[in-house]
């Protein structure tokens, strides 16, 4: 019975372009015929695929997206497929590590400063480098062995009430080879991996004059910076600090931004710093 329906009929059915009576007969088949149901599922998957690839005709896309907007489950499947297609396309164009770099450029986390700011960043990084020269030399050898790529991304919220949603962030540190990339991303990574962290303070978050940044790993607190001032660039507020990532092993690290002078008070947001090979 199901064989009488060609693929094109299924698409028309799924796009809700069939007259009521024909649609009803398709629905009956959908419920009563298992094989037909699988065909419908496959046709729906094709629509998702084509929508993700951008190969639906404008009319089809309009009808499909209208349905997507009213069906959260379908919207989620489409979002996942789009990410799948995008990730593959990125990987086909760039080496894997460069993909993360290109994506991080899109994050609004990082302000886009001029060259002067980039130069200032490098200067600060160099000063810090001099201060910790011995340690960094020791860690340099270790870094060569680890080849870790620090990545900062948002983790699960600490709690629904106290964790506003923030953007995903990546720090593919070793990808920052040139001033141009450094400028675009505004992430200071000196040769010895002094990583500048800029944590944007979401506008809806409780504002504070002073902030604390805590980075923790399995072995405990790696960085604790108190009384950091909120900085302003245009309409964006952010807190800036630096950390030496050369000794990081692959793994997950918590990055906590808390309002006030101490990490235990104020509104809390958390990101996860992931160092991976």
């Amino acid at each position, binding site marked *: 019975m199901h064989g009488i329906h060609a693929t094109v009929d299924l698409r028309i059915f799924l796009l809700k372009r069939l007259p009521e009576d024909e649609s009803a007969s398709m629905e*009956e088949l959908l419920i009563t015929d298992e094989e037909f*149901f699988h065909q419908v*599922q496959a046709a729906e998957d094709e629509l998702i695929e084509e929508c993700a690839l951008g*190969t639906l005709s404008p009319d089809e896309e309009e009808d499909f997206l209208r349905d997507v907007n009213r069906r959260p489950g379908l919207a*989620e499947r489409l979002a*996942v497929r789009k990410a799948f297609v995008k*990730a593959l396309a990125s*990987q086909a164009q760039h080496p894997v590590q460069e993909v993360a770099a290109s994506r991080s450029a899109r994050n609004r986390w990082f302000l886009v400063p001029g060259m002067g700011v980039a130069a200032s960043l490098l200067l600060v990084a160099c000063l810090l480098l001099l201060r910790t020269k011995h340690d960094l030399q020791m860690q340099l050898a270790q870094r060569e062995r680890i080849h870790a790529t620090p990545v900062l991304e948002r983790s699960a919220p600490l709690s629904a009430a106290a964790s506003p949603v923030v953007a*995903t962030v990546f720090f593919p540190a070793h990808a920052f080879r040139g001033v141009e990339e450094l400028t675009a991303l505004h992430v200071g990574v000196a040769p010895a991996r002094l990583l500048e962290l800029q944590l944007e303070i979401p506008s809806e978050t409780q504002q504070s004059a002073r902030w604390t940044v805590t980075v923790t790993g399995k072995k405990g607190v790696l960085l604790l910076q108190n009384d950091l001032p909120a900085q302003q660039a245009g309409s964006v507020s952010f807190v800036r600090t630096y950390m030496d990532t050369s000794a990081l092993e692959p793994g997950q690290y918590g990055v906590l931004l808390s309002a006030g002078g101490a990490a235990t008070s104020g509104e809390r947001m958390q990101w996860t710093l992931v160092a991976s090979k």
Partner: protein
Amino acid sequence: MQEATDKRGSWQLTQENFDALLAAFDADRGEAGRRYEGLRERLVFFFNRRQFTLADALADEVFNRVAKRIQEGELIGAVEAYAYGVARHVAQEGVLRDFRDQRAEADYMGNIVASKCTPTEDALLAAMEKCLEARPAADRDLLRKYYAARGRELIEHRRQLAASLKLSQGALRKQVFRLRNAVEECVRSMMKETGD
């Protein structure tokens, strides 16, 4: 027979009439269970397609009503066909509009776990890349090649890819479908873990 109504007088599915419902599918309990699960999946799809938010609850409502008819002594030949009629009725009932978000009472919806927001594109992309990286290199390579072409070149590209792998186009499509499902499932698990 066990009482099938609750304190408010609403009909409730009991173990006894659930067994009777299963028996209506097939005398073999294993086969009956398979058909029950299959029908439930299709009913959920039916209600989802009609844009009801609580498609699962409505599918269960269909089963409740079918079981009630069986308990009342109605002889049901083909459960699936019967269930379709009930499903249409359930969908048409005005009272079930209350199942839709926009028409539900506030206190009723307050007791329902809010659906998760669609994850951000970047979060999805990050999870996707991790899941792709977790696959063997050969799998990633196949997926990249399969999705390498666009537009008019796509069909010819995939035909050539199948030929180069000494696979039929159908076999290649199935292989990619399986790999893609595994990657997408990995992403969904990851998003659940991170609460996104």
